[in-house]
């Protein structure tokens, strides 16, 4: 089985870069290849000008925060954090100073004399982070470090990781299967599927202009339809016809939050008649499921005090040009 195939990726120095994909897409394998814990059958990895092919893990200036934390249970927090320096034969006194300093930055100062089995999940996470960061690697690899934490703690650590990355100016390569997390954290991200790169770009580009059907679905878009016919200034799909000059592509995407609903049945360009099937009130926004043409569309509107539409009501969907994206793939 091929875990990764033809992945060609350039990550900039000092960047927060995220590898995003469902489980089994090869993102962790890619991370392990960068760390030197696995060898690729072919291909090459370089950091800066240094080609790392055949260089064993312990000679790479790369450190990893493992998904399972992988703290050493027979060492206390202090000795866990200092392990990398100890292996590099840094003087004991110097190690102590740097451990103290790193513990301050990662907020584990009170935990230094505890054993790993006396730590909570979030504390273990911080210690694992400190243990990797103290070595000041060229690249820090993070393998789904937040996936085992509950939602609140997760959000808090997301912010802290970003802060740390900014503060240290280090290159972070972050792996996650959570697209929200990826968008919140990264400068740029790559979407992987079945060992192949789907798209690389900023979160905004990936969300608003997904390159493939897979990326669109994975980023959470619900209104993706095949283009059935194409005219000079229109495209025809299941939900109806859209007028305009569209680039070439196989599918059309309507961003649910950029569509708007109106009562009026005013005819006009790119106004689609529809009927409300379901209305899901979510507090800040309301999600409508609508019948439109032969298709089901989702529209999410912000609750700004307007009256809500009810199920069974006839409405008009106003498709603004910025709500439409064409998938080239």
């Amino acid at each position, binding site marked *: 089985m091929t875990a990764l195939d033809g992945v060609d990726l350039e990550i900039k120095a000092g960047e927060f870069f995220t590898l995003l994909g469902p489980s089994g897409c090869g993102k962790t394998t890619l991370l392990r290849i960068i*760390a*030197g*814990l696995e060898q690729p059958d072919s291909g090459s990895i370089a950091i800066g000008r240094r080609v790392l092919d055949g260089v*064993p*893990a*312990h*000679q790479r200036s*790369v*450190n*990893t925060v*493992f998904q*399972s934390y*992988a*703290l*050493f*249970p*027979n060492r206390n927090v202090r000795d866990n954090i200092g*392990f*990398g320096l100890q*292996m*590099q034969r840094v003087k004991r006194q110097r190690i102590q100073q740097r451990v103290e300093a790193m513990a301050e930055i990662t907020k584990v100062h009170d935990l230094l004399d505890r054993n790993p089995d006396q730590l909570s999940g979030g504390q273990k996470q911080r210690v694992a982070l400190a*243990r*990797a960061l103290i*070595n000041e690697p060229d690249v820090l690899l993070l393998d789904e470090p937040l996936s085992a934490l509950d939602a609140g703690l997760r959000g808090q650590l997301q912010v802290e990781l970003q802060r740390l990355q900014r503060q240290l100016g280090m290159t972070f390569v972050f792996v996650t299967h959570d697209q929200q997390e990826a968008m919140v954290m990264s400068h740029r991200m790559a979407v992987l599927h079945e060992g192949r790169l789907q798209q690389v770009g900023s979160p905004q580009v990936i969300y608003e202009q997904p390159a493939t059907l897979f990326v669109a679905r994975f980023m959470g878009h619900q209104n993706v339809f095949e283009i059935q016919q194409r005219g000079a200034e229109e495209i025809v799909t299941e939900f109806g016809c859209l007028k305009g000059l569209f680039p070439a592509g196989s599918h059309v995407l309507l961003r649910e939050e950029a569509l708007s609903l109106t009562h009026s049945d005013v005819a006009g360009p790119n106004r689609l008649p529809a009927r409300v099937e379901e209305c899901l009130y979510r507090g800040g926004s309301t999600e409508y499921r609508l019948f439109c043409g032969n298709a089901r569309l989702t529209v999410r509107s912000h609750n700004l005090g307007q009256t809500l539409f009810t199920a069974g009501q006839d409405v008009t969907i106003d498709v603004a040009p910025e709500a439409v994206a064409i998938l080239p793939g």
Partner: protein
Amino acid sequence: MRQVVKQSGQLVAIIGPGVLWIIFFLVLPSLYLMSIAFLSNDPYGLPQLPLSLQSFRELAGFGILGWSPGNLFTLGRSLWQATFSTVLVILISYPIAYYIATRPVHLRPLMLVLIVVPSWTNQVIRAVGWMNLFAPGTPLANFSAMLGFTTPQMGLFPSQFAVVVGMVYNFLPFMVLPLYAAFERLDRAQVEAARDLFATPTRAFFHAVLPQTLPGLLAGTVLVAVPAFGMFVVPELLGGGRSSMIGNLVARQFADGANWPLGAAGALLMILATLFGLYVLRRAARRLSSEREMLL
């Protein structure tokens, strides 16, 4: 009140049989043995009054003909042969256990059975097997003579070498099994973390693999070193007079040598030495182990 009576009744029912077992088969015999050790022996070798420390003097080497170091040599040899065999068993078992634990799941039970099967045979028969392999004129004996380790026409036994081989062979399964258990639940992520944090393969072994297998290693050491120290059959059959161990010394006193108080004193010494050894191992385990719960 009734509740208390009921609970203590349950307690007696649960732990009673075990306590009785230990009292009848461990505590009483040990007390009996201890009391014999402090008696003097009659002309036929049986214990008699008055109380004396004669047997301990004899054990230390003071006989009718003055002091001789024979018994102390035997004790030293027991310690040395047991230690040496245990170290060899560890060195051989460690790679075996690792190898088995890294095979595909369906092959492992078979390999473990192959390790264990020889121990289902009686110790004496296994020792006799080695006697046949090491006898004069066998390929092994000839090969060793060819290399100049032994003189031609001589067998490889009786010798200390044969005793150590016999003991290592005997105790291998008792080390392989606990080590295998330790390797099977080895957290590989820790090894990878060590490698990732600049540990060479050797240092990763000592910092991430060894600490994780230490409980198994210590359990195996207890299972091997304690019986190895008291080994009787192997030195009796594969070793000559110059490789007999304290187990043989004790056995002789109760059989042909016929000096029960001396035998009892020897047995007492073995128990004390074993307890001391266990104490040292336990302290080492407490200090080094990565896990709280220990077999010790």
